[in-house]
């Protein structure tokens, strides 16, 4: 894997997994309607972590009801279904309430995509420093490695999350900006404090 920090691009000549194919299928539709950034576990898995997941988490930029309607119809047409509800009004209202909604291929529930709108400035910043991972058959936008590590270590904090962070720290060791991680750590701490966590 080659990480060009200046261009914010990782070139990965990996053999695509079924999870990668699912991701490319789904994201190819999403990006026709709004911006997205993949966050959390799949970022580590895409970049080599030796584990499986049942879901891929993404932030999508806030969209209008009409834009959502178009996106939902395109997803249905392509063979995806929403696990949480069928009516688009209901699905959209979940998103507006700050909840995540899940989509999978028709007649299956795993793997699935978990979509949500960013809920505050810290979440929204994911769209300003994302990285593009170039794969043999397409590309995927992921959160910056520093943001990924900071959220795994200081927000999610389970053993699995800490291991996900460790994998990225070890693979990209010399290219990680620890000043940025420490700044994010403070922002996460403040957010946790404000939320009473």
């Amino acid at each position, binding site marked *: *894997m080659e990480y060009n920090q200046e261009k914010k691009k990782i070139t*990965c*000549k*990996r*053999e695509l*997994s*079924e*999870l990668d*194919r*699912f991701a*490319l*299928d789904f994201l*190819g539709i999403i990006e026709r309607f709004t911006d997205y950034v993949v966050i959390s576990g799949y970022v580590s*898995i895409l*970049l*080599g*972590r*030796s*584990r*499986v997941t049942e879901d891929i988490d993404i932030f999508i930029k806030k969209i209008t009801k009409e834009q959502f309607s178009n996106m939902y119809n395109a997803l249905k047409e*392509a*063979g995806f279904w929403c696990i949480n509800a069928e009516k688009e009004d209901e699905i959209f209202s979940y998103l507006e309430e700050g909840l995540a909604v899940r989509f999978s*291929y028709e007649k*299956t529930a*795993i*793997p699935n995509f978990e979509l949500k709108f960013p809920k505050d400035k810290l979440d929204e910043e994911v769209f300003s420093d994302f990285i593009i991972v170039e794969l043999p*058959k*397409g590309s995927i936008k992921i959160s910056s490695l520093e943001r990924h590590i900071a959220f795994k270590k200081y927000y999610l904090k389970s*053993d699995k999350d800490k*291991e996900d962070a*460790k*994998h990225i720290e*070890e*693979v990209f060791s010399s290219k990680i900006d620890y000043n940025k991680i420490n700044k994010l750590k403070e922002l996460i701490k403040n957010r946790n404090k404000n939320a009473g966590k």
Partner: protein
Amino acid sequence: MQENKRVFMKPGKNNKEDRINFVKFWAKYVRTHEDEEWSRQQNMLINSQIKPRVSIKEKAEN
């Protein structure tokens, strides 16, 4: 060109340490081996749990 060399894992004193040591070992493996090589092994794990499906892109190409 990445160097393909044998890497070794230090056994952990308990399960947690052993897991972290494996994460470090595997990360080093990823760093020192070609993408095709580590991903082929990783895919044995992933693809054993996810049903293969003809992707939309592949359907279109055919």
